[in-house]
């Protein structure tokens, strides 16, 4: 987890060191297996809780909602954040740089960006989810409703009455 404080973080750190050498297998919905370090897999709150509950570490985790292409990209993020330290200013700057490049690349392919966001949501990878959702939100900023509809392929379905009500609300807001 990217954030955390006090005793809980210390305990998590200790546990992470203890079990950090274990390897975990994640399987995409196409049946492709990805072997990652436990530290990397623990970026996902979903997997973390399954591991901590004494789950089937040896058997691996099938992920029926995530395809191989998406999973590979998600793992790229988890590897960076799970296996690298973020204690010094330089280390944090390196991670921030990684995030910046990572999201810039994803942003070029919106459909893929949404797939990664959905996977981050499903796997509860807080940092990645915040990164991708903020990126999508940033594209909305400064756009007119019409531009937003075009950008997201949304059909215009407001009635004249709806528009009237919105105007009314705005003068009261």
């Amino acid at each position, binding site marked *: 987890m990217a*954030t955390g404080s006090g005793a809980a973080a210390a305990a998590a750190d200790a546990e992470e060191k203890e079990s950090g050498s274990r390897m975990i297998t994640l399987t995409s*919905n*196409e049946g492709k297996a990805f072997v990652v370090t436990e530290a990397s897999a623990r970026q996902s709150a979903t997997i973390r809780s399954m591991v901590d509950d004494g789950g089937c570490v040896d058997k691996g985790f099938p992920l*029926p*909602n995530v*395809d191989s292409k998406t999973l590979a990209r998600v793992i790229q993020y988890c590897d960076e954040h799970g296996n690298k330290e973020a204690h010094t200013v330089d280390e944090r700057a390196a991670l921030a740089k990684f995030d910046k490049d990572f999201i810039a690349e994803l942003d070029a392919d*919106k*459909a893929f960006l*949404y797939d990664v*966001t*959905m996977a981050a*949501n499903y796997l509860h990878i807080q940092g990645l*989810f*915040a990164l991708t*959702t*903020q990126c*999508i*939100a940033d594209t*909305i*900023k*400064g*756009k*007119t*409703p019409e531009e*937003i*509809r*075009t*950008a*997201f*392929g*949304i*059909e*215009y*379905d*407001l009635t004249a009455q*709806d*528009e009237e009500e*919105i105007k*009314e*609300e*705005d*003068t*009261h*807001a």
Partner: protein
Amino acid sequence: MDVIATKNKKALDRNPQEPTTMFKMYKRRRVQRQCHPSASLPDELVYEILLRLPVKTLSRSKSVCRAWRATISSPSFIRAYLKQQQSAISRHEQKPSFLIAPHTLDSVIHDEPWPSTFSNTITFYRWQEGRDDAHLVRATDLHGEFGSVYGMSHCDGLVMFPTDTRLYVFNPATGKGDVLKLPDGQKSRFQTAGLGLDLGTNTYKVVRSFNRSIDFNQQAHDAAGMEVFTISSRDSCWRTVAEDPPYPVTAHPMYFKGSLYWHICKELLQEGSPPPQGFLRFNLEDETFRLVLYDVVSPSDETRLDLVELGGELCLA
């Protein structure tokens, strides 16, 4: 052929219980993606994305489609949005910004107990931590509607201005829309007013005290009552609170977690009854009063203790 087979399998895997429906949905999404230059945003993400928009964009986004409008207007979304903003600040992802509403006097009349020449142009500036200067958010000219402004109060970004003529509520964050001018209530000069959120109905309420006695020189506590104005598109009048305040109150109340906290006015207490060491709490949901007592910290009667909110807790200072 191979690719199609994989896609079918993927659709089936997404929801084994309802393979046919899921498959249809999946196909529709693909088709949409082909029609539009950009991919369509999955419904599950809309809520999360909207949570991360600045207020101005959010209010404009109501005109995108019905589904977005319904989400943005729902009370549960509004709560989640405010919570998200606060947690972004506490996680240091976002620097807090301050709203500055300076009062200026048009002219100075000497020996006035309280100035009656306040500027009728209400301005708001926003200053974000770390910035060099504050920028103007909005300025509204109320053209001589009032003379004096009393203590302002705010709740979730709404700002209330009590004046000697009427009460105004601003929502500076949206930057548009007129100021809400509250109608006249009981025909007497009000004493004190507060603004807060009713946690039961998720509506903002303005509460003010009024005096039933016309003669202000003989302010008797038993002549005081309270009235409530609910800020919503339906309500447009003041409603007298069923229960009168059990103690006389003074100064402007402090809002904290669904209640307003008033100072008890010791001067108006009847002779003989010792003043209680406490605050009068008004619950905005059930609209009842309760006395909140505290231990005497300072032996001096001269010091008036004030309530402040620090890190989500109510403190005495």
